[in-house]
């Protein structure tokens, strides 16, 4: 099956004016401005399969939002090409718009002065969704997102959490196969975040939608993403699973075992190193780029030694991503 989102060598360059320091510098910039090219996205290539949820990660200013804007038809790339559900978004904007849903966490697509339900019905008309289909989809969304308790309220009176839940529903009411979410849970409380995550899981697992998500919330990534694309300074740094990220960017786990025999000659399995040993207490950690995951290491230790106690310490994804951003930034 062909990919829902195909990105090939996508680049976007912005041209800005350099501000020279000081008053004289400012005057010189006014008379003789120095223009520089800022490569927001450089030669990015990746695919997203139908029904897959991909997290597009990176520090602030990495190029995540610019990438999403090119895939939603907001921006035209400087070079490269992209297809979303078979459509080139920046060439056929309106056709692409029918295939996608988009939520930008900090801005709403609802009519500010209207009750939410009126916005939903306007969107129904715009996307030409049959009334019965619209009603049944709205009920499905209401069951998970609890919209009906506030959907007669004007958008301007909604809390952030209520507003983003409504925006999510609005983005999916026309049943798009591809959904773009740019920091959808930013600023939400934990209860609403979990509600939104459940909704997204449902949309991917039950409805088979393809989702491209950007977020700085690593709990969200762990709970939702099957695959991660990491970009920094506009370049793709890594495309792989969370396990691959963990393996690539840090000694992120330790297995602490208590051996039955304190005099055992400890020769660790391949890819695992002995970090510390104090009598029967041995601490194992990953060794080299081919190190196993924590669960594989746990299994290997138990199989190789007779142990009376065992525990694992795993650095959370936030630590891993911090390491990844630092390494990617230094690269």
């Amino acid at each position: 099956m062909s990919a829902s989102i195909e990105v090939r060598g996508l680049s976007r360059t912005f041209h800005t004016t350099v501000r020279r320091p000081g008053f004289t510098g400012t005057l010189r910039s006014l008379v003789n401005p120095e223009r520089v090219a800022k490569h927001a996205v450089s030669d990015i290539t990746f695919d997203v399969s139908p029904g897959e949820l991909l997290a597009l990660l990176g520090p602030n200013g990495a190029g995540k939002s610019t990438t999403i804007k090119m895939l939603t038809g907001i921006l035209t790339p400087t070079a490269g090409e992209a297809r979303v559900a078979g459509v080139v978004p920046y060439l056929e904007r309106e056709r692409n718009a029918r295939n996608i849903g988009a939520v930008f966490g900090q801005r709403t697509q609802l009519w500010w002065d209207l009750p939410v339900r009126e916005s939903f019905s306007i969107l129904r008309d715009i996307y030409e969704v049959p009334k019965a289909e619209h009603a049944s989809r709205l009920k499905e969304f209401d069951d998970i997102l609890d919209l009906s308790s506030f959907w007669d309220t004007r958008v301007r009176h909604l809390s952030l959490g209520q507003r983003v839940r409504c925006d999510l529903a609005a983005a999916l009411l026309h049943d798009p196969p591809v959904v773009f979410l740019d920091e959808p849970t930013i600023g939400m409380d934990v209860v609403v975040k979990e509600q939104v995550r459940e909704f997204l899981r449902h949309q991917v697992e039950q409805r088979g939608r393809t989702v491209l998500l950007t977020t700085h919330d690593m709990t969200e990534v762990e709970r939702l993403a099957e695959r991660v694309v990491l970009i920094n300074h506009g370049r793709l740094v890594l495309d792989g699973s969370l396990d691959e990220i963990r393996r690539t960017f840090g000694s992120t786990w330790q297995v602490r075992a208590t051996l039955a025999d304190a005099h055992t000659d400890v020769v660790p399995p391949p890819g695992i190193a002995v970090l510390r040993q104090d009598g029967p207490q041995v601490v194992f950690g990953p060794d080299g780029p081919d190190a196993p995951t924590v669960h594989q290491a746990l299994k290997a230790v138990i199989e190789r030694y007779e142990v009376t106690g065992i525990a694992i310490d795993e650095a959370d994804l936030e630590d891993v991503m911090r390491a990844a951003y630092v390494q990617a930034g230094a690269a």
Partner: protein
Amino acid sequence: MHAVRIVWRVTRLNFRAQLEYRSEFLLMVAIGAIWQVSVIVFATVLLTRFTGMGGWDSSEVLLIPATRMLAHGLMVLFLGRMFGIGRDIQEGRIDVYLTRPMPVHRQVQLAYFPTNAIGDLTVAAGLMAGALSRSHLDWTAVRISYLIAAIIGGMLLEAALFTALASASLRFPAAEYWARWLEELLGTFGSYPLNVLPKAVGGFLTYALPLAFVAYFPAAVLTGHGHDTGVPYWLAAASPLLGVLVYLASRLLWRRSLAHYAGVNA
């Protein structure tokens, strides 16, 4: 037909939403009317202190602000939301519009109901009623049709100027400040027969900024001053058509500018 239905539905809902905030609604209507105070003062002074201006009698001159005001009120009502485009760009609303299967220009116009246009149009209708009742012209079907065409042409011409500035704002957000200057200029000079102004100013308001085509030239043609405007008679008479053409050109410019839209990142 589908597009017309959506436009009607959203406009109706937006209007109803404005009505529900009673004080805000009345305040906006009042602001729309008060904003035109300079035109009202001009009309009052013209009728009470002067017998005419630049070879035109007072009732003929009154036709100029009445036509311009009506064109302006209709522009605010139907096509006036381009004025706040800088804010739409800054707040990312253009980004949202670009992800919907509907022309962005139409979505900008449907963002809210311009309640102040009611005030504008009330003043404009009053002025036009005054101008027509004092007019000595024989209002034949041809004259009335030309007046209607002139009002629509004037509306489109003014909308074209703001659309051109909005197109520039898509690439250079600071261009929005020019829209304020333009509105001020249209309000200040739009009520006079331009032959009372120095030639350079009249030329500027004809060829650089085609304010003369909004109301002055059509009023001149209607009142028999069409040969004394400083431009060929056919050009003055073609003002309504020019409004349509300039508006179409501005929409083309808008479309092209939107293709180069870079949001706040650029």
